[in-house]
């Protein structure tokens, strides 16, 4: 009985057509899936590229803004403007006779500008992660063996 049903199903013409069509549509769907995936990845790559370009422009823009702000700040605190502000507040320039001097032991005086590290101070910072966490298994074994042989040789 079961064999008869199977036989009838397999030999029904419309079922054979559906199977062929199904196969064809599956192949088409698979093709479109691959194409869609490709397009999606391409689109994302292009977007990322454009975003990077925009970020480069933004970095340049921020750099210019920082430079401008630094110059604006220097302008606001320039000698002439600070003097005008001081005069507005009622300050007057002192003469040498009006100054009271006080000796402060150990005071080195006003220090000149240090805008960056001096060449001697450029030591590389210690890595935060210990080498035990970063070296490979091979290195660990090799170094361990070398250490053991070195110790035994002593």
């Amino acid at each position, binding site marked *: 009985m079961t064999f008869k049903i199977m036989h009838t199903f397999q030999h029904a013409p419309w079922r054979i057509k559906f199977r062929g069509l199904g196969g064809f549509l599956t192949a088409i769907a698979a093709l479109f899936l691959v194409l869609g995936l490709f397009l999606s990845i391409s689109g994302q*790559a292009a977007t990322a590229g454009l975003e990077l370009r925009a970020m480069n422009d933004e970095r340049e823009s921020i750099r210019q803004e920082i430079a401008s702000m630094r*110059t604006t700040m220097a*302008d606001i605190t320039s000698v002439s403007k600070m003097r005008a502000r001081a005069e507005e507040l009622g300050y007057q320039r002192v003469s040498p006779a009006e100054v009271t001097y006080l000796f402060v032991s150990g005071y080195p005086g006003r220090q000149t500008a240090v805008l960056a590290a001096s060449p001697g101070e450029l030591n590389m910072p210690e890595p935060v992660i210990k080498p035990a966490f970063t070296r490979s298994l091979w290195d660990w074994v090799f170094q361990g063996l070398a250490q053991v042989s070195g110790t035994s040789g002593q």
Partner: protein
Amino acid sequence: MKFPVLSRTAFLGLLLSMLGVVIIAQMVNIQTSAVHRELSEMADEKYGYEVKTIYPERGSIYDRWGNLLAGNKAVYEIGLDLGSNYHVNTIAETFSADFKVDPRSIYGKIENARMHGYSYVALMDYISPEKVNKLKKLQSEFAAVNPAGREQSAPSLSGLLFSPHMIRSYPEDTLAASVLGFFPYKEGSNAHGYYGVEGQYDDLLAGQPIQMTVSRNPYQLTELPSTPPGADLVLTIDREIQAQVEAALDKHVKAHGALSGTAIVEDPETGEILAMATSPRIDANKYWTASQVFKQPTHFNTAVGTIYEPGSIFKILTMAAAIDKGIIKPETPFLDTGVLNVDGYEIYNWDDQAYGPVDMIGCMQHSLNVCLAWIALQLGPQTFDEYMEAFHIGHPSNIDLAGEAYLPFRAQGDPGWSKSTMATQAFGQGVAVAPVQFLMAASALANDGKMMAPHIVRSIVRDGVQYNVNSQVAGSPITAESAATVTELLAKSLEIESSKALVDGYRLAGKTGTAEIPTPYGYTMGRTNASFIGWGPVDDPKFIVYVWLEQPKSSIWGSVVAAPLFRDIVSQLVVLMDIPPEEFRQKLASQE
């Protein structure tokens, strides 16, 4: 015979499949055809890549305390996209109102660009971000009513484009302009620094531009290399001292009707220039005014670029040489008859008077030409010339500023030399120096006989590292004892003279100079260069100050016009440099 009959569904499927195949075949054809390849290559060549030159940000210049003297700021170029729906009337009216430009020039620029078929025209440049923001706001307001400028009847600023770029900026305006020089930013990428530090250190400040080919294809995005900015410079200049010196100089130049003025303040122990002022000077932000302010390029910074006969201040070098050689002492007597005949050439004192018996202090106090000519004769030409060479007279000081001028010293054996040449050189005639060169020579007297090389840059900051410039000894023309003796001699002569250069509470050494101006027809009458050089405190000099007023009109004498300028500068200098008066320092020394 029976043909297979296709069902309607199968027929439709076949038709659509064939259509698909045709489309794909055409796509392949387009992609692979020779015409496509040619077009593609042309597009790639023309539009696929751009050659980009990345200019690093020009390095900044700071004073010794880190105050910015020269930096950069962003400004905008405003242009018009001629492919957009632009409204020429709105643009012209807005620009006329906001930037005070003639609307006809805007119409002209747009029309000219349109006729040439350009897609973009630059309308204005160097516009501040504040003004651009105002314009952008107005643009947005118009766009809300008339999007993309589609309605020609409604106002619109559609199509305006704003491109930022950097320009050089000097936030202190005229302060230290002669030291800084200027960077002519309007010359674009071809610009180079001129004069001063901008000229001398142009390569370092500019940094290294990078040129690269960048793909416009977002898939082929290449990483833009980071361009390190140009080196920053920290100067030896003290902004406060510079401002005070400039203010005093401007005041005295104006008060005495001088053509120009120069003042330099140096630390004699290190050769660091604390202030270098000239009057007149320009606002480096408006560098294009330089040609109107200065008749000759050498006048931009007269402290280094202009040589002149220094006159009587030169006597301190002659005196120092003779004392160092042991030929004279401060108490050596001299009988001044008011005239000295040297090989048939008669030398007179500045006032044609005879001062009778004097010692060397008297010689300097009265600034006797006859006495100093006699001293030079006692030294002899060879020794005199050797000392002048040791003081670097006739050589550039090699200060790190662009455009230093110098005139070789006329020594024995040179064409036109005679004994009288030496005799006049002894009191500052027939010899020419730039102020900075004489300052360097005189610094030996204020620094135990050691002459320090003057310099203006204290540190160079490059790639995140600060390199300090070490002070250098340029020579030791005299001994420390001789330097102390001359300093004391000069201090006494100022005190006896009750010089207008003196500052209450401080012992200072110095010398005035009044030099007639040489012309092709001899020395001029009534036109002089008035100078003063002085240092202090005498027991431990912390500063040396040189001032020069060119052709003062109120008085021709250095003692009348230059000495008070020196006093004005020093009276503020001691406060700014935290130098206590003599009394306090002596009290402190006794406690120790």
